[in-house]
């Protein structure tokens, strides 16, 4: 009983020693916050209580800097009967049909992935999967949105392989297909890589779970891994402060270690328990561990909770109560169950070899009381932890350099003019880190487990079959563009939203919901807060206009080293539904003789483009125009054409413009493309502009007129560009140049490994 030899700071001790000096500053609390805790409790907090408040009131858990802005989502979200659970839950839940629902969410694990890339990324995947389980869903896929510093920077060769290994290892071992995502490189992410993971799950609507600790006398069960010292302070230290410029050495022990095998058992046991109706409430343990799970379930419930902390199974000796409460050990869930059913819950866990322990009881005291070997170490109102954290109205100021940046337009940069120069630009762009083939990364991920992956990488969106009998499925895309958001965070956020929305539509699915991951610098910098406010407003306005709700997401601040913040990087996940996955539209070129056409308008929009970045290292001007009404018409068109089976293939135009879309379609399909640019078009602009709202479509023979008519009816411009042809070697751009397949593939493929120095 080594714990008893340590002097425990109990409520009684706190009462008796009101003037004891406490390390609130070191734990990240401000003086007024510490004083408020004392007011709430009517005494000084115990060591455990102080730890709990510092965690729950941290930026990561309380959203104290972002909350006033995030309210916009709730205010502007369109009302839809599809939304079964929204913001504030572990993950948003949307109805697919009268029986099925899906839940999805994207979350960041940026700071841990820089400190310890493999475990940081792995536990990011593990955390988001548990959010999905907590809604009552079976997780069915993951996606990842990754941003690193320059690919040739020596540290990228440390961070990238580790992050990919972590995501792959966790996802592969837990048995979830990785169905897509994105990877970008930019020096602004050098010391602050972004690792955003998305998971999606499916549930019968009747199985939707709640996080409420309701029902006085109900038993509180902790299930899963033992609790250790890993990750203590992860939330308050790592996710809520800027890395110092001197290095990250002290942060190392704060990164948790993941065990996907235990997570797999958690999935199976939890689903079995939900199906058997054995669970009243459930909450996952993630950042902030037991502290968060206990206070959130108790706050959401109708009374209080009593916990005997010494019952928590430990894997380290000598852990004190505040350590146990703060530990971020992975693969744990908290369950609230009827005491009459507790034994069955424990038995079913044992059958899978999973640890489950009764640690407490739901009470009617209105207090969260935690005892340790019979001594009370915590006695607090749970809402004060979970719901009544500080709210900041941080100062906001438009960055001074925006006007200067806006006039520094990429449209004025020197461009290639001869056919030979443009031809070389196509190849150079295809070989550039952001546009080249990413199979070095995606081959490390399982994509087919469950046997329901209809489209995965490198298609514009992942498509998963939900029901083998009806063929109903979902499509998901995850997109961001920090460069556009740096130029104009409102427009940049909407461009990311528009792209994710379009990527879903390109597969033939109808977009129905949004999840977002908002990656920004320090909220203490008024310029960053301005970017944040503009981006949130852009997304909220965009969701309102598109008529689909934001169902949840995550904010990651402090992606900043010293004074250097990352580009504001809102990453947007859009989920769509497709009635019959047999009618999905793939990437490619269809069959020989099929018509290649471009839907949408190409303007001279090069500011923020990949071309400006790759060829000039330039970022300036204003981003492309975003037109969400146009996007809605485009999505409706694609959905209709998919239903009528009038498209053989389609591909969204984004970074790299038409040239890159053609390269990808050719490399993926095995066919060649004969292309004739429209009369009078400037070849360079037409090939490399990044105008939004454009889709390359491939129309089967005999459907040309029907597709043209469908476009005209909706006022969407369509431009025939050429034909798919097995006898054409690669890209034939009539009157300009040819690039053979071998040369195209030599540029586009195998670059990541080569650039990492393998």
């Amino acid at each position, binding site marked *: 009983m080594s714990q008893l030899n340590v002097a425990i700071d109990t409520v009684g001790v706190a009462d008796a020693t009101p003037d004891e000096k406490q390390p609130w500053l070191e734990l990240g609390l401000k003086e007024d916050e510490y004083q408020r805790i004392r007011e709430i409790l009517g005494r000084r907090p115990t060591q455990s209580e102080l730890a709990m408040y510092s965690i729950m009131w941290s930026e990561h858990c309380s959203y104290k800097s972002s909350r006033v802005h995030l309210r916009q989502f709730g205010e502007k979200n369109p009302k839809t009967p599809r939304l079964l659970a929204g913001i504030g839950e572990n993950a948003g839940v949307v109805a697919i049909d009268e029986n099925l629902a899906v839940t999805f969410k994207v979350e960041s694990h940026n700071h841990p992935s820089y400190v310890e890339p493999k475990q940081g990324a792995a536990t990011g995947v593990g955390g988001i999967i548990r959010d999905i389980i907590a809604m009552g869903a079976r997780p069915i896929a993951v996606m990842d949105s990754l941003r690193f510093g320059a690919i040739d920077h020596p540290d990228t060769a440390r961070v990238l392989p580790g992050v990919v290994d972590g995501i792959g290892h966790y996802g*592969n*071992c837990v*048995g979830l297909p990785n169905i897509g995502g994105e990877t970008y490189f930019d020096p602004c992410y050098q010391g602050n890589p972004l690792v955003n993971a998305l998971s999606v799950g499916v549930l019968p609507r009747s199985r939707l779970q709640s996080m409420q600790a309701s029902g006085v006398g109900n038993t509180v069960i902790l299930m899963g891994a033992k609790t250790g010292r890993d990750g203590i302070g992860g939330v308050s230290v790592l996710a809520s402060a800027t890395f110092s410029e001197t290095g990250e050495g002290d942060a190392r022990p704060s990164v948790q270690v993941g065990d*996907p095998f235990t997570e*797999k*058992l958690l999935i199976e046991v939890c689903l079995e328990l939900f199906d058997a109706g054995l669970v009243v409430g459930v909450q996952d343990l993630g950042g902030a561990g037991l502290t968060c799970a206990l206070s959130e379930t108790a706050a959401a419930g109708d009374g209080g909770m009593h916990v005997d902390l010494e019952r928590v199974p430990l894997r380290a000796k000598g852990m004190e109560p505040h350590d146990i409460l703060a530990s971020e050990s992975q693969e744990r869930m908290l369950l609230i169950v009827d005491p009459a059913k507790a034994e069955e819950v424990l038995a079913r866990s044992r059958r899978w070899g999973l640890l489950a322990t009764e640690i407490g009881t739901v009470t009617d005291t209105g207090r969260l009381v935690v005892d340790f070997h019979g001594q009370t170490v915590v006695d607090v109102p749970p809402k004060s932890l979970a719901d009544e954290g500080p709210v900041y109205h941080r100062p906001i100021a438009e960055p001074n350099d925006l006007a200067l940046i806006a006039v520094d337009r990429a449209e004025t940069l020197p461009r290639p003019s001869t056919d030979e120069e443009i031809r070389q630009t196509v190849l150079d762009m295809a070989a550039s880190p952001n546009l080249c083939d990413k199979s070095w990364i995606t081959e490390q991920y*399982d994509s*087919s487990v469950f*046997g329901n992956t209809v489209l995965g990488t490198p298609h514009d969106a992942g498509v998963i079959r939900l029901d083998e009998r009806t063929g109903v499925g979902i499509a998901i895309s995850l997109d961001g563009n920090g460069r556009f958001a740096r130029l104009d965070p409102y427009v940049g956020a909407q461009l990311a939203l528009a792209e994710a929305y379009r990527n879903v539509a390109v597969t033939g699915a109808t977009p129905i919901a949004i999840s977002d991951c908002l990656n920004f610098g320090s909220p203490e910098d008024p310029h960053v807060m301005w970017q944040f406010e503009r981006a949130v407003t852009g997304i909220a306005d965009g969701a309102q206009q598109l008529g689909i709700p934001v169902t949840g997401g995550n904010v990651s601040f402090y992606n900043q080293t010293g004074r250097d913040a990352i580009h504001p990087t809102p990453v947007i996940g859009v989920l769509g539904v497709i009635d019959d996955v047999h009618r999905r539209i793939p990437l490619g070129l269809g069959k020989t003789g099929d018509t290649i056409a471009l839907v949408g308008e190409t303007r001279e929009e090069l500011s923020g483009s990949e071309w400006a970045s790759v060829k000039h290292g330039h970022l300036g001007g204003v981003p492309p125009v975003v037109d969400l009404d146009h996007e809605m018409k485009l999505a409706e068109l694609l959905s209709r054409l998919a239903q009528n089976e009038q498209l053989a293939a389609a591909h969204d135009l984004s970074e790299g413009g038409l040239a890159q879309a053609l390269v990808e379609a050719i490399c993926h399909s095995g066919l060649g493309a004969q292309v004739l640019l429209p009369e009078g078009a400037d070849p360079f602009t037409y090939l490399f502009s990044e105008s939004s709202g454009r889709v390359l479509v491939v129309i089967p023979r005999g459907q040309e007129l029907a597709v043209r008519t469908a476009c005209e009816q909706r006022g969407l411009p369509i431009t025939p560009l050429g034909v798919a042809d097995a006898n054409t070697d690669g890209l034939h751009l009539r009157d300009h140049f040819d690039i053979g397949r071998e040369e195209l593939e030599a540029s586009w493929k195998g670059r990541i490994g080569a650039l990492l120095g393998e």
Partner: protein
Amino acid sequence: MSARVGVVTFPGSLDDRDAARAVRLAGGEPVGLWHDDAALASVDAVFLPGGFSYGDALRCGAIARFSQVMDTVKAAAAQGMPVLGVCNGFQVLCESHLLPGALVRNAHLRYRNRPARLRVETAHTAWTRLYEPGSEVVFPAKHGEGRYVADEAVLDELEASGRVVFRYLDNPNGSMRDIAGVTNEAGNVVGLMPHPEHAVDELTGPSTDGLGIVASVLAHLTGAVDTSGVSR
């Protein structure tokens, strides 16, 4: 009455649903088997699916070897029951000494997921009798520890006795002699790293070549009197 094919679920099995689907699509009746239940529920054949049984603790397949169900599977295999191990299932069969050799870390040291082109080397097994020897199939291969290794003498013996069942046409992991799958002397136990159960539907797989695996065992079971295709 279609034949009953047992699909074992170990803690950490991942492709068990896929295996059951493949059995169903090929016309068999999938029957779930539990790792610590010795009963084989009167199945006619057993499919050990892919995954990370017991979290790949110690070595891939090393713990599964000691499970209750494997005791029975070993006894049944000795009596001629067809047993298939895919990916982690193959690792379990090697660890259980039902098949020779071992699967070790890929030569390039990474997990790799790619469709694998394979040549079917023999139809003289319970699980490949409907394939044309020498024909090509495409199954997804996805593993980190799939490099087949064995003593040279064992490899020579496998080659000489026609027990190499599948060979990679583009070796993805450094397997010795490009071996992707092998069988036991009797031809009833087969293990391979690539996943035939992920190649059963045009919608989700690179081919439907995998349907022949279960179809073969169903043919083998219904024509059980005629075992000429299997025994040598």
